[in-house]
């Protein structure tokens, strides 16, 4: 016999009852408690006295409960993020810069389309507010005389009305001057925000197809009412004009840009790409990756950024559509759609607007950490823009799609979805009512767009610091304006005025890029090691203990019960076979081993296993004391060799 095996056999012999062989559940529990690696259980068995035992049971159960609670907390807080901010100093890509004139089309070019509308607007102004004809610029035209024999096209369709607060449900049509009955709802556009104190309010009525369902929109000020009214008609008219014609009516790049300078190098109109916006006309985008390269700057400061001088011809402004003068600038990513009407910085004429940028990049983690989308592919809204996904694109696309669904035509301010037309009177006579209803529902979040659209996970943001200075200065004006006129001489034939010009500087203040990044705060390793920490802290337990518990409580436990039941069934069957059984049933120990006397001692290895006494112990009646503690202590040194020697001799 090899010595290793011998020692092993010895250990095996000295070990108490092993798990599944334990005859009773109590025995099994006792065995488990004594041999488990967790710390609490052993104390329960070893302790003396009921109070101590109860205390230890309490401690152990508390520890188990604490472990479960802490581990549950760890699991629930698994999907949290930690944020890190990094700063890089490096060469930065210059953003795309879109520049628009605030006025969309040259008024001289579109005037023939809008002549009727203009006349009616003037007439409306006259009859509503009664101010005398005192337009300086355009009074050469005697439009009032033209009005005499003309049928009011626009007012007939959507009449402008004056409401008297004291006469509910009555309104005065400005054109005919007659009072007419107004039924249906009256929606005050401004009433939510402030009280209307004037007695008279102006508004217009929009009706649905069958003209029975009408809604009247009123405004606190006539300026808003007339601008809204004008805009509605304007959109109607422009929706019917083909795109090429509109582009020709708007400003060309050579006209808009007098000089251009980027990173110390001259640039010109060829560096700008055309982008036609329905409400802002021709816009020009600088650095729009048209030849696959994105310009970048390797120095901060205004001289290394974009410097442009813009020609803003105030004479060509549409008097009713826009009431401010200047240009609009949007700084955006190359693949982003410039929402000119929503965001953008307005720049003033006869000024230099210097815009210093700081770049901040943000990266968020998508599902399951937060509700954001990487590229919009998981959002059930079709992107009608030719640009990368953003929340705004999603909202606009959602609205436009709903508009096509409900009203049958598309709104003019946004791109066309496939197989749809822009709304106009001829084909969709009552689209305005539909549009207003839909717009109200959209704003009140009834269309569900806001809940469907998710924000994008990563985005770049340019923080702008805008400051203004006078330009040109008094002394430099004298030489600067003629030279600029000479520069622009190819396009226009007039001497430039300083109010026709605006200078714009866009530059990186410094090349520090801040990146805000989210990263998972917990990894699976961290979770496991936290589990390990908790288990170890409270009970000195590990996965091995968990396996033990499964083994003991789920396999051995049930196998003992099953064995018991099987034995009972067998006994019952045996009794049934031989019903007269005078003797009392023997205890199992007594049956197998008649030599063993059953006393009140703790069961030993042999007695528990129902084994006959070991061969070595030949001396009858003197069994060595077999307390577990005794045995385990000297399992190896002297006792082992002693018995060995005894055997050999």
């Amino acid at each position, binding site marked *: 016999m090899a*010595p290793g095996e011998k020692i092993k056999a010895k250990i095996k012999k000295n070990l108490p009852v092993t798990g599944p062989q334990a005859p009773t559940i109590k025995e099994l529990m006792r065995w488990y408690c004594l041999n488990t690696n967790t710390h609490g259980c052993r104390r329960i068995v070893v302790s003396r006295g009921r109070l101590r035992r109860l205390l230890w049971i309490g401690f152990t159960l508390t520890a188990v409960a604490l472990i479960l609670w802490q581990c549950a907390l760890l699991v629930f807080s698994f999907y949290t993020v930690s944020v890190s901010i990094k700063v890089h100093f490096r*060469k930065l890509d210059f953003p795309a810069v879109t520049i628009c004139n605030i006025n969309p089309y040259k008024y001289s070019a579109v005037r023939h389309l809008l002549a009727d509308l203009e006349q009616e607007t003037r007439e409306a102004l006259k009859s509503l507010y009664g101010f005398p004809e005192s337009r300086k610029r355009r009074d050469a035209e005697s439009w009032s005389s033209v009005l005499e024999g003309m049928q009011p096209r626009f007012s007939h369709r959507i009449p402008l009305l004056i409401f008297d607060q004291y006469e509910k449900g009555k309104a005065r049509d400005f054109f005919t001057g007659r009072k007419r009955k107004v039924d249906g709802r009256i929606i005050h556009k401004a009433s939510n925000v402030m009280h209307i104190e004037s007695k008279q309010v102006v508004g217009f009525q929009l009706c649905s197809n069958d003209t029975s369902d009408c809604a009247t929109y009123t405004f606190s000020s006539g300026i808003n009412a007339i601008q809204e009214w004008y805009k509605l008609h304007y959109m109607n008219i422009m929706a019917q004009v083909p795109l090429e014609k509109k582009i020709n009516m708007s400003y060309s790049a050579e006209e808009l840009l007098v*000089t251009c300078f980027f990173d*110390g190098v001259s640039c010109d109109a060829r560096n700008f790409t055309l982008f036609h916006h329905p409400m802002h006309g021709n816009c020009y985008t600088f650095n729009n990756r048209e030849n696959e390269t994105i310009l970048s700057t*390797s120095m901060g400061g205004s001289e290394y950024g974009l410097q442009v001088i813009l020609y803003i011809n105030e004479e060509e402004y549409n008097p009713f559509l826009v009431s401010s003068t200047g240009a609009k600038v949007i700084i955006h990513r190359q693949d982003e759609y410039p929402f000119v009407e929503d965001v953008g910085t307005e720049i003033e004429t006869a000024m230099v607007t210097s815009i210093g940028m700081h770049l901040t990049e943000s990266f968020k983690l998508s599902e399951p950490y937060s509700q954001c989308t990487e590229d919009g592919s998981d959002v059930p809204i079709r992107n009608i823009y030719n640009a990368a996904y953003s929340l705004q694109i999603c909202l606009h696309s959602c609205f436009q799609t709903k508009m096509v669904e409900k009203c049958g035509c598309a709104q003019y301010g946004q791109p066309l979805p496939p197989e749809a037309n822009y709304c106009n009177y001829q084909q969709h006579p009552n689209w305005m009512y539909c549009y207003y209803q839909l717009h109200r529902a959209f704003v009140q979040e009834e269309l569900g767009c806001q809940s469907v659209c998710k924000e994008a996970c990563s985005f770049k943001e340019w923080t702008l610091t805008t400051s203004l200075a*006078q330009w040109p*200065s008094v002394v*430099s004006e004298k030489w600067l304006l003629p030279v600029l006129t000479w520069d622009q001489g190819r396009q226009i034939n007039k001497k430039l005025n300083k109010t026709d010009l605006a200078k714009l500087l866009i530059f990186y203040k410094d090349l520090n890029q801040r990146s805000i990044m989210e990263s998972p705060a917990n990894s699976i390793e961290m979770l496991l090691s936290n589990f390990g920490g908790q288990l170890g802290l409270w009970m000195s337990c590990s996965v*091995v203990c968990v396996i033990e518990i499964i083994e003991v409580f789920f396999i051995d436990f049930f196998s003992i019960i099953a064995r018991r039941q099987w034995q009972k069934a067998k006994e019952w069957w045996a009794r049934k076979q031989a019903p007269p059984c005078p003797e009392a049933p023997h205890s199992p120990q007594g049956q197998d081993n008649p030599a063993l006397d059953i006393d009140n001692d703790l069961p030993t290895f042999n007695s528990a296993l129902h084994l006959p006494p070991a061969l070595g112990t030949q001396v009858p009646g003197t069994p060595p004391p077999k307390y577990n503690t005794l045995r385990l202590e000297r399992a190896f040194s002297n006792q082992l060799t002693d018995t060995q020697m005894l055997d050999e001799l």
Partner: protein
Amino acid sequence: MLLHINPACLFKLLHGFPPWIMPTDGNLGGKNVQMGKPGHREGATMHVKKYLLKCLHRLQKGPGYTYKELLVWYCNNTNTHGPKRIICEGPKKKAMWFLLTLLFTALVCWQWGNFIRTYLSWEVSISLSVGFKTMDFPAVTICNASPFKYSKVKHLLKDLDELMEAVLERILAPELSHANATRTLNSSIWNHTPLVLIDERNPHHPVILDLFGDNHNGLTNSSASEKICNAHGCKMAMRLCSLNGTQCTFRNFTSATQAVTEWYSLQATNIFAQVPQQELVEMSYPGEQMILACLFGAEPCNYRNFTSIFYPHYGNCYIFNWGMTEKALPSANPGTEFGLKLILDIGQEDYVPFLTSTAGVRLMLHEQRSYPFIRDEGIYAMSGTETSIGVLVDKLQRMGEPYSPCTVNGSEVPVQNFYSDYNTTYSIQACLRSCFQDHMIHSCKCGHYLYPLPRGEKYCNNRDFPDWAHCYSDLQMSVAQRETCIGMCKESCNDTQYKMTISMADWPSEASEDWIFHVLSQERDQSTNITLSRKGIVKLNIYFQEFNYRTIEESAANNLVWLLSNLGGQFGFWMGGSVLCLIEFGEIIIDFVWITIINLVALAKSLRQRRAQASYSGPPPTVAELVEAHTNFGFQPDTAPRSPNTGPYPNEQALPIPGTPPPNYDSLRLQPLDVIESDSEGDAI
């Protein structure tokens, strides 16, 4: 580790070791004991002797236990949870537990690898704090947009201005200026870097036309084409030539405005570079004229509270609260009333007309003791308005190496900081500019006028360095130069930005205009008439916002405590182990090594013995013979006749002397062990 252990303690320690270790460890213990305290020298030598003896015994007799016994002992006694199960279960469960233990060990190793990698990636976590506290008011630098008073520099720029006017005339009305180009112009300036027109109407043969038409292409040709040139297809360009005029490059412009502006500023740079700085300071705007009124909080201040600094682009700049000589002023309250209020006079009428076309004040907020790079980071304030600037201090504090690549004071950056003369702190802007100036001196042999000069170098000018403009233009456009500089300069670890909320209003209002101008004129010029105008004065309010700081501070995301607790967590989770278990494991490894050494010694000995037996050439004894030889002492093999020439076995003498008990394999091996053990026990007591 055992160096300072008392020998007696050592024995007690050794006594606790598993029995087969005792003699083998003697060697190790002996060495240590020899180095022990001198007082125990005698006892120690005795112990050493004993140990060496035991060691010798052990080496002679072979290891007390086998590898297997060692393993079983380890498994049974280790504190890690898995191994115990391996030995005390049945064969099927044994296999399962063996696999499980291996699996868990592998898992623990893998996870440890992950954690150590994470730790070595030096990640940082950030903490963000926002609020209001009493902070040092930022340093405020203000400059006039025009560097010099025109009335003071007129004599320097006289030739250049005349030339400029002539150029403008030529551009705007070519025919006219030909007729009355009678003025005497300084042709040396012009001939150095002339402006030319490039006629690109024929894209294959661009025609270059000198603006004055003197030296190129003849008069007839140029005058004819210039007339048409205004309309379309003509570009203005600046000709930059190196020393002998052989190598020329053209810097093209798409608009005449840019061309003449760039040309003028290049020439002006050249002129000012030759003037000593003291004179330039005097030609610029003095503080007492520029700063009309100043109020910080409730306390009045004046131009003496400002530090003057000469900035080549903007002339004299004035820095409030720079903190160079005196303590920085704190501001303890948010709002306009507790900030800095300034009224400035920019004197727009006295601007140099061709040098700057923008009128206003350039201002910048920066940290105390840092150099203001106002051209890059400054903002404008407009004349005739009141500009209110709400300030939020946005601070980013970083950890430095190895967490983030940044530098605390710039000492490890391989670029000499030319701004160190100003005694300012390191900033990446200063580094980039120093780097550019360094390159400039290297390739053009002179320093650029806009950047500070290292000792012993001169600023570039046309007289001493005729081809500097060509060289500078090349260098400025060179992307490689910029990228080397960006690569060399490191960002500073503390990054402070001042976030400004700017709003403007008309000032003075029409009603107050009259008295305000009267008072200011009286104070400045002691005149009863109004000497100021709306175009010349600027009002500034700079104050802290309601939340005046936002600090982002980095801290190590994974420190050593984190690493240890996670390593412990993993080991505990899978195997219930701790550091002590690792030590146990190491102990077992040492035992392994010792057993191996002892085995090897035994093997070598047996080899030597076998070599000694090699003289015996008879056939090997059969098993039966050997058994008989060991058990039956009277037994004599009957092979003598088969090998007559050899005598009895050479090792016959080694046979045990009769009378001793028959050798018992196991007990033979174990007995000496027990003897030694009891010996050592006796010694220890």
